[in-house]
């Protein structure tokens, strides 16, 4: 069976997502938008996928590969503009062909997650966050073996490391290879994407922490989307590039990966990861003290 996926082009309401890469590759609960759709449609019997991408098609291609991981074939179609559903049907579906998935899964615009057409992803940062919270119970599909629901409403990646004194409050999602340090409070309404770190006594509530993001000790992230050093209040759309890496920063030193600190790159050079000068200073002081103690002897 065939299906046609339309990648959403830039959306002005979510500039930090739009300006930094194709929206179809935005990370959601351990996978990108297009991956969630392929998995969903493959489960419905689709084997031939045609993906229409208006911009960043190479990033989309890099995210999905040739489809072998889902046992499907993927054909990329580069388009100048994002077509509507009707335009896509008239342009790419031949009349009388019966090998397409039944409507509406024959042509899908990936501006929402599977099964959530009433929760648009890219209308605002608030709608993005609402869609993710609603998607959490559906994200644990049989194909995902690295995430476990440890308690009702609490999902944890199998390679996550959580301090026994950290507190997880439902609903919350702790992705794969996430590290949660002592005394941290995660939830309610918290999503920690893969490889993020929440340091001791930090609080994350009603917020989304992007992949490879460091939340510093005693930092409070509430009602926000945080990715790299960028913090967006999803209630007001106000955004901030946090100047001090020990509060919030990107853990990635390589800026080339498609899913690395996309918010930060959208904000420009300010968001480049910097060494934690305070930490370095503290270490020097400690070393100096150590050497001073030894000198009298």
């Amino acid at each position, binding site marked *: 069976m065939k299906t046609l996926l339309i990648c959403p082009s830039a959306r002005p309401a979510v500039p930090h997502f739009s300006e930094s890469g194709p929206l179809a590759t935005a990370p959601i609960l351990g996978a990108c938008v297009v991956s969630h759709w392929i998995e969903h449609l493959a489960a419905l019997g689709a084997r031939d996928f045609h993906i229409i991408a208006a911009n960043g098609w190479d990033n989309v291609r890099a995210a999905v590969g040739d489809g072998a991981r889902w046992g499907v074939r993927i054909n990329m179609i580069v388009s100048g503009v994002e077509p509507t559903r009707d335009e896509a049907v008239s342009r790419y579906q031949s009349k009388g062909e019966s090998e397409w998935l039944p409507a509406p899964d024959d042509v899908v615009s990936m501006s929402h997650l599977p099964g959530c057409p009433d929760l648009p992803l890219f209308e605002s940062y608030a709608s993005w966050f609402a869609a993710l919270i609603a998607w959490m119970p559906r994200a644990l599909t049989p194909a995902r073996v690295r995430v476990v629901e440890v308690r009702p409403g609490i999902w944890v990646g199998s390679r996550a490391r959580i301090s026994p004194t950290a507190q997880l409050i439902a609903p919350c999602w702790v992705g794969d290879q996430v590290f949660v340090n002592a005394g941290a409070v995660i939830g309610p309404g918290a999503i920690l994407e893969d490889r993020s770190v929440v340091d001791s006594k930090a609080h994350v509530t009603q917020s989304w922490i992007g992949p490879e993001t460091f939340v510093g000790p*005693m*930092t*409070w*992230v*509430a009602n*926000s989307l945080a990715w790299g050093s960028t*913090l967006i*209040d999803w209630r*007001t759309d*106000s*955004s*901030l590039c*946090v*100047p*001090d890496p*020990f*509060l*919030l920063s990107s853990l990635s030193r390589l800026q080339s990966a498609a899913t690395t600190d996309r918010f930060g790159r959208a904000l420009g050079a300010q968001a480049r990861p910097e060494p934690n000068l*305070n930490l370095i200073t503290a270490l020097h002081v400690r070393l100096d003290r150590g050497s001073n103690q030894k000198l009298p002897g």
Partner: protein
Amino acid sequence: MKIESLDECLRISEILELTAVNSAQFQDEVRSALGDSPSVIEINLSQTRFMDSSGLGALFALYRATGKHEGVVLRLLNPMPEIQQLLELTQMQLLFEIVRR
């Protein structure tokens, strides 16, 4: 930066940024103005476009310095949304009264 004392109120305004560059100067100037023992200290942040941990540290130092005097009200006026985010990220809004006028 402008500091003016009216009755028992100390008003600090025209702070364009509060960073490692000027936080020590901010602390010195405010401390010297504290001699009059004001009962209200208002810091107008409406023009403050950038603040880092040194700036937050300067505000915290002011909180500690005035903490010795009971009944002193510390007020932050009209912070820009970005500065408000930073204050919330570090829970500084628990120490200061944040007011919009």
